[in-house]
């Protein structure tokens, strides 16, 4: 619950204002009761005065409600904003993936799911504050006017926590199950929509839509069964409120007629007091009904808080440096690993790569090729041993400067949503036409509908696998790096494309760049000066 702490002070003030707004209604009720009572008693009634008093207090009450909502929303915005910033900061600070879930799940948590805290902090919290005060005040007023009415409310009162508990349980379960059902229906639709092409090509359109209709109908029937329980429990609450109010009305009516002569402190119930009690009785139950209506807000918020805690639980590895652009680290373009080990704890043989060398890292899957490249790129610091770059130990402080000298070709390129140009430059200076030409993708870029301004989607939109790989090469060599780290640059490529990529990399080496390539491809490894087998013993 410390996640809610930032908005606590604001929420408390909002709750206070909300309670006061509820109290104003009592004054309004008193004015109306007084006016109608005097009307019956042949006394002088200032009609306009009473109406004006009622209106002014009503506007005051609306303004107080507005103020309470504003404060509560501000508190909610603070809580949500801080939780969201914390997620973004944590994701930008770490270098490995969160075990909480994939990028989509984290984005959903930081986006729409966090918003669910809003209704909890505004609707539910305010209703709960009112429940704590208003029924008690109204009960006291009822006893003051008539012990019988007080008794009716008192009897109905204790029943309500019992029902609240029952409803809470039922509604929580109902909303959880309903959320799950809706989730499943969306999963069904998502699955079919992601298989559209296959369904169409297999001529299965009609079969799939009728199957979907049957499943959706089945789910709807089950959802309605759940909703029936939820609605029934809130109907019971309404029924109790209605019975309570009706009993007050009937008692007051009979007392005023003179048919009942008990229930007051001596003098018979005056018309004004009767009308006053009738106006207050529904307000005795109203906060409870508000709370019941907002119950699923609490259930949803609890689920979100659990997920936030799960997300924060995995601290992960801290990324060395900020990932910001700084001046390059001076010194030779050399890199060496001394006494390092893999995340599994298995030691890595010592590696020393001299400036201008062309080195292939080979070894079976799991030998640690990618881990070695990540260590060299300063994406993680070794738990043991040392990575020496440009003649000095790699540290938190010089990681950004070291990376400013690198070219990086990852195994699976991820394209940001943005133009091809933005994806290639990533904000850096460099000779883009030269890089595109060297990676043999200049013609590909020209053929795109809007050239370099074409927007790429999450799947690399419009580029084939080989083209996307060559774009990554162009990105890596754009800033004429001193050292290029490439992870399986020719995997899954046809021989012609693989040759293009290989030549592009060798051209960089010819320019003087150091080349470190992790590969399974014997043809590529053979073109290097030296092959380091990570699977072999030291």
């Amino acid at each position, binding site marked *: 619950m410390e996640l809610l702490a930032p908005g606590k002070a604001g929420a408390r003030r909002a709750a206070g204002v909300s309670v006061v707004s509820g109290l104003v209604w009592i004054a309004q009720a008193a004015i109306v009761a007084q*006016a*109608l009572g005097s*009307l*019956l*008693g042949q006394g002088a009634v200032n009609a306009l005065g009473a109406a004006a008093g009622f*209106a002014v207090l*009503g506007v005051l009450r609306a303004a107080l409600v*507005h103020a309470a909502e*504003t404060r509560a929303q501000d508190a909610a*915005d603070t809580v949500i*904003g801080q939780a969201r*910033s914390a997620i*973004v900061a944590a994701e*930008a600070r770490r*270098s490995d993936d969160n075990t909480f879930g994939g990028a989509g799940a984290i*984005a959903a948590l930081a*986006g*729409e799911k966090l918003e669910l805290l809003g209704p909890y902090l505004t609707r539910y919290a305010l209703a709960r504050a009112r429940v704590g005060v208003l029924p008690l005040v109204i009960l006291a007023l009822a006893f003051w006017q008539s012990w019988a009415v007080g008794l009716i409310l008192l009897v109905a009162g204790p029943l309500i926590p019992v029902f609240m508990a029952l409803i809470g349980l039922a509604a929580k379960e109902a909303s959880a199950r309903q959320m799950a059902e809706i989730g499943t229906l*969306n999963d069904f*639709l*998502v699955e*079919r929509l*992601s*298989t*559209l*092409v*296959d369904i*169409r*090509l297999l001529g*299965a*359109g009609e*079969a*799939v*839509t009728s199957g979907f*209709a049957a499943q959706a109908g089945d789910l*709807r029937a089950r959802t*309605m069964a759940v909703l*029936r329980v939820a*609605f029934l429990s809130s*109907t019971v609450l309404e029924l109790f409120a209605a*019975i309570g109010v009706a009993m007050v009305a009937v008692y007051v*009516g*009979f007392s005023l007629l*003179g*048919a009942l002569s008990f229930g007051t402190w001596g003098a018979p119930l005056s018309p004004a007091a*009767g*009308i006053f009690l*009738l106006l207050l009785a529904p307000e005795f139950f109203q906060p409870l009904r508000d709370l019941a209506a907002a119950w699923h807000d609490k259930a949803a918020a609890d689920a979100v808080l659990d997920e936030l805690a799960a997300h924060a639980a995995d601290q992960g590895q801290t*990324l060395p440096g900020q*990932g910001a652009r700084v001046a390059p680290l001076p010194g030779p373009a050399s890199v060496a690993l001394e006494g390092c080990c893999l995340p599994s704890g298995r030691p890595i043989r010592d590696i020393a790569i001299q400036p201008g060398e062309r080195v292939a890292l080979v070894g079976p899957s799991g030998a640690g090729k990618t881990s070695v490249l990540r260590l060299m*790129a300063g994406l993680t610091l070794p738990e043991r041993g040392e990575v020496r770059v440009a003649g000095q130990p790699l540290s938190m402080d010089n990681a950004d400067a070291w*990376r400013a000298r690198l070219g*990086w070709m990852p195994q699976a390129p991820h394209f*940001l949503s943005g133009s091809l140009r933005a994806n290639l430059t990533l904000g850096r200076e460099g000779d883009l036409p030269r890089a595109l030409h060297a990676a043999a993708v200049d013609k590909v870029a020209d*053929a795109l*509908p809007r050239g370099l301004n074409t927007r790429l989607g*999450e799947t690399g939109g419009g580029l*084939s*696998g080989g083209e996307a790989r060559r774009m990554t090469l162009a990105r890596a060599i754009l800033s004429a790096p001193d050292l290029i780290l490439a992870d399986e640059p020719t995997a899954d490529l046809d021989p012609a*494309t693989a040759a293009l990529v290989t030549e592009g990399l060798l051209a960089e080496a010819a320019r003087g760049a150091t080349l470190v390539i992790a590969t399974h491809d014997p043809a590529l490894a053979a073109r290097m000066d030296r092959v380091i087998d990570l699977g072999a013993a030291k």
Partner: protein
Amino acid sequence: MKHLWAILRFMWHDQRNALLRGAALTAVVLAMGAALLGLSGWFITAAAAAGLAGVGATFDVFRPSAMVRFLALGRAAARYGERLLTHDATLRALESLRLRVLAAHLAAPHGKMLQIRGAQALNRLTADIDALDGVPLRLALPVLAGAAVLLIAGLVLWALVGPVLALWITGGYALGALAVAWATAQRMVPLSRRAERAAQAFRGRLIDLIRGRGDLAVHGHLATQRGAVEAAEERRLSLRTALHRAERRAGFLLSVAGTLVAAGALAIGLMAAQAGTLEPALAALAFFTALALAEVVAPLRRGLSDFGRMADAARRVGRDIAAPELVPGATRRAMGDLVARGLSLLRPGGGVLMQGFSLTLRPGQTIALTGPSGVGKSTLLLALAGLHPITEGQIDLGGSPLTDWPEKGLRDALTLLPQRSALMVGSVADALNLAGPASEAEHWAALRAVRLDTVIADKGGLAALLGPRGAGLSGGEGRRLALARAILRRPRFLLLDEPTEGLDDATARAVLAGIRDFLPDAGILIAAHRPAEVEFADRVVTLK
């Protein structure tokens, strides 16, 4: 607004009776609430007057108090029925909407099909459909029922307390609600749209930051990307704040309108009673009814707060369901060859891909298409399957142009296995049944043809369950299951896009031979990327 209407019309058309009954019950609930409070006020005031006049003994207490009890209990019961009915109708309408979206996408052009496959597009579509549940529940039904109740209340009040109070109360609420709705809805739509755009930007940029973390860090762009995420969040926050402010303002104004109407009713009633033109009890009735009618306009606030979001969602979903539904057509046997003549194709994004390409595929023949990546092998297969538009030339299937073929007949005659074939949750048999009804023996024969029979038998046979996207099978096994599904169609022409991807060389050759044995008479065209596929073909066509 126009799109919201379209969605509403669709839902209305789909669930007219249920929605009408729901609206009627909503109105009953509101009317009973107003009657309950109005009657209670009248009852107590009249009882007090009778008590003061000393005629309490002759006052008929039983009918009014029975009425109060009936209205109190009846209202709770009607509310239960109303909730069930409106939620059921809404769920049914949303179900039809989802079905329609699915059907529309099934008939969409191939490029659109690929677009929708991205996780973000899917997320957005489902969120949009979920947002539309408010169209009947928080917009159409409350407005319809509210208008009806105001009308009825106006007529009843006119009869009981006269035209002045009737017009003041109902007119006041109607005008107040209209003014607030008009002023708020106008602001909400653009704000919601911009907030939604900011939310999408935040989401997309955060996903980019997480997925591209390593790349961004090495290129010194991570800090900038984080700044971009935070900028989107700031924009979203300020827009959400503006939306909330507009919603609160609407709530405040509705509340003030209710207070003024009730205060006015109190003043008019009191003055009329003092002047002797209205009984005090009826003045109380008018005031209490005015108080209760606040319930009629209160739901408007929720509807208005969601209005922009719903309008925005309706705009996008409306585009999807506007497309025509898949039209089933007659089956037709293809007798002749698959012939492409002088074909010109554009890339999916634009730009010329190939020009003047010709090819004839005969039944029983196997042709391999080769050429470097990006030369257009996949696009050519898509065009031959009728999923990619051709700019010049013609494709004939069995002597008639592809465009003249009805969808069903075309799919029966020709099957394409695309490069990335997807599997769904379900059993192996479910996956195979997507190809159409077939016996268990046929299923096993097809699995044997792609050398998957022992794998499936080890997993528990045809009833073995697969997870989402074929989880539980390796990449190569999933590929072979998709192959088995394709050959079960027993098409005259089978187009395969890199069919043996992820298989070792020996398995690849065995699978290709198995396919030929299973379909001895089919014409097979392979977009080939490895020697096993090229050597399997009778003829090789190289694209340049």
